[in-house]
Each structure stands twice: as C-alpha cells, then as structure tokens.
C-alpha cells in the first residue's frame, strides 16, 4: 500500500495546517531520528518508512517487532515510552500477501512525538506480544485477537475481549466476515429469519 500512497490531497486553504504541527517529527524519512536509528540498529528487519500527512510509519518485519519497539522505548534519544494504540488491519482487499498488518501507535511523553510501527504477517503467524513492554497492550491485544484472530506470542491471558467467551463464529473484523454474521437469526415480528446480508452499501 505504501507505494500507492499519495503525498497529499488538493490544498483548499493556504497557510499552516492545524494538523501539520510536527507532532510526528521530521517529514522526510531520511531525517527522522527514529527511522535512522532503527535502520542502523536493525538493518535486516527494517522494511521501509513512509510519510503521509506528516505521519511517520516505520514498517518492520514481524519477528523483530518486539525488539524494535523495545529499542524505541528504551533508547535515550527516542524514548517512545507510551503505547497509544495497538490494532490490526485486514489487508485482504488491498494486497494478496501477507494478509494482516499489526499497527502500533507509539508516543514519547518526554519528546512529545508520535510514531507508527507496522508489521505485516499472514494468518496464523504468531505476532510478538507487547505486554512485556507495555502493560497497556494487554487488552488491546486481546481485542485484536478477538476481532482478527491474531495470536500474540507471549501474551499472558489471550482470551476474547468484547465478544462472548463461547463465540464460535470467527473473528468479525476480518474482511471476509459478513456484516450480520454467518448465522440466520430470528427477528421478532417477522415471519422469516433475517437473511444473511453482506452489506447494504456495495463497494464501487
């Protein structure tokens, strides 16, 4: 997807943009300290760095994800010590392989900068868990497991988060999961059970 990204939309108002205030560090990947440091330290695992709307995304290989995030957390010139968000994206419709992206949004409280780290992987590949680095990753990873079926290696308590524990219909945020589920279910007041509808809104 990185290659396809455009560098920005049409400009509608002149002057400084309220969202472009440097919260993500330098806009050129070559100048960004985190990109430089990660590329130096993990030359094999570093894939590329993309900037879109001033947001810096580092793409890395899955097995080294935890080491890289640990490095970003503890390196004294970077100190991305705060995990903003951890989630996943099912890339089923955008590329063939690998299927998922795990997205880690980092923030450095002392340096006031954000950074996004992404790692791609296929269905069934274990993803290194961030719970050893950030306790806050616990529920976020449980949610990602619940919604996408991603197995986080090293997670202490990988159970379903939002869906019931006995939910047996798969993982709903996957792109091949129909909007209303696999089952037909009885609707009160209607004779026929609700049909299996993918979506009211078809993709163009």
């Amino acid at each position, binding site marked *: 997807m990185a290659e396809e990204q455009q560098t920005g939309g049409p400009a509608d108002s002149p002057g400084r943009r309220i969202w472009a205030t440097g919260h993500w560090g330098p806009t050129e990947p070559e100048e960004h300290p985190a990109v430089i440091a990660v590329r130096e330290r993990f030359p094999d695992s570093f894939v590329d760095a993309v900037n879109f709307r001033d947001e810096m995304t580092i793409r890395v290989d899955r097995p080294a994800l935890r080491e890289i995030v640990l490095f970003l957390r503890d390196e*004294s010139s970077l100190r991305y010590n705060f995990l903003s968000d951890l989630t996943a994206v099912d890339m089923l419709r955008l590329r063939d392989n690998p299927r998922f992206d795990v997205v880690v949004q980092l923030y450095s*409280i*002392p340096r*006031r900068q954000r950074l996004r780290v992404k790692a791609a992987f296929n269905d069934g590949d274990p993803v290194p868990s961030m719970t050893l680095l950030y306790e806050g990753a616990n529920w976020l990873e449980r949610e990602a497991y619940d919604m996408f079926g991603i197995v986080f290696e090293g997670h202490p308590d990988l159970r379903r988060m939002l869906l019931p524990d006995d939910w047996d219909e798969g993982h709903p945020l996957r792109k091949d999961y129909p909007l209303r589920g696999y089952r037909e279910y009885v609707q009160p007041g209607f004779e026929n059970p609700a049909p299996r509808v993918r979506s009211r809104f078809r993709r163009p």
Partner: protein
Amino acid sequence: MAAEVLVFNLLSGIAIVSAAAMIMMRNPVHSAIALVITFVNVAAVFIMLRAEFLAVVQIIVYTGAILVLILFVLMLVNPDELPDFHGARPMQQIFGFGLGIILLAEIAVAILTRTVVAEPGPWTEDGMAAVGGNVQAIGQVLYSGYVLPIQATALVLLAATIGALFLGRPDEDEEPTPSRRTVATISLAHTRGSDQDEIPALSSANIKHEAGDRDLIMARDADEFTSTPEDDQKGQQE
C-alpha cells in the same frame, strides 16, 4: 393464678421444645434460630419471676450479641461441608447417651434434695421495694458483696479477648495479603522514591493549593513534568 401457671407452662414448654429442636436441626442457622426462641422464652420466664433486669440483659447479651456473632460465623459455612452430626460411632453414641443421663440425674438430684425451698431470701418484694427496684437491688449486690468475683470475671474475659486476638492473628509464614498501597508523593514534579509525607515540589512548579494538605501542580508548559529528573540527567549525559 391459673392463668399465670398456664402462661408459665406454655413458655417453658416452648423453651424446652425449641432447645430440643436446636439439637435436632440439620441446618446450623435453623439451630441458631431455635436457640433464639429458647432464649426469648427463658427471658419471659424471668419476667414472670419479677426479674425484669435479668430478662432484658439476657436478651441484650445472649440474643442480641452472642447469637448474632454465632450466626455471623454460621452464615459463612456451606451446609454441605459440615460433618454429619448424627453419624457417630456406636461406642461414641452409647458414651454420649450415658453422659447425658448422668448430667440429667445430677440436676434431678439437685432439685429433689434442695434444702432452701420455700425459705424467702433477703430479696422479697418488700426488700426489693426498699432499695428501689430489682435493678438497684442487683446493682447493690453485685458491687458490694460480689465485687471481687466481678473483677475476676472481667479479668478472665479480658484474657479471653486477648487470647482470641492471638489465635485469630494470621500466620506469619503465610504470604501477606496484598494490602492497600501506601500513599507517597509520586509525582514527576517531585523527587522520586521518597516515602515521606511532605516533599517540596520542584521550585519551577506552579502550585495550586487545594483542600487540606493537597496541592495540584499546574503545568503551563507542555515539556514540564514529562520525565523524571533522573531520566533527564541520563539523557543529557549521553
């Protein structure tokens, strides 16, 4: 007069029946309720004997306090986990039965061979009225003639309380129950790792005094208080 006897028989009958029921009941809470009924009826019998003070104290102390504590414990017990009350071995049963008979016989002997029957003591109704009532009478007796036994009882009860505290104390070798965290000043605006109660905030901090001993630190600059002083030093060294 007949009415009084009738009431007395009724009360004591209920007391005896519920005392028996207290032993027979399988559920300990039901037993406790049976015991409450016994106590209340005994208190009523006391009132018939013109011992109102004794009756009220019986209710306050036994039904109001001791039995409530017993219930407190019983409610926490799962009835399924209790041992079978009626499942003793034959020898135990025979021995227990014999012991009960002996105790009953003792009481019977004591009643039958009593010597002071029908001889009024000093606390007749007139004697009672002279000191002002049975509360005053009991008070005078307890705190004049029986002052030493009363004090001795108090001492024994105190010892019992201390003993109970000692026995109920948690074992030392056990892991301590996770307790409430202590409040220490932990803000990034303060020096770290100190458990003193009052620690001066960094001089740069803009302090707002809140209720009592609490302060709020008002951060005007976005870079204030985002890292510990030690971390900053480390960063500068490198």
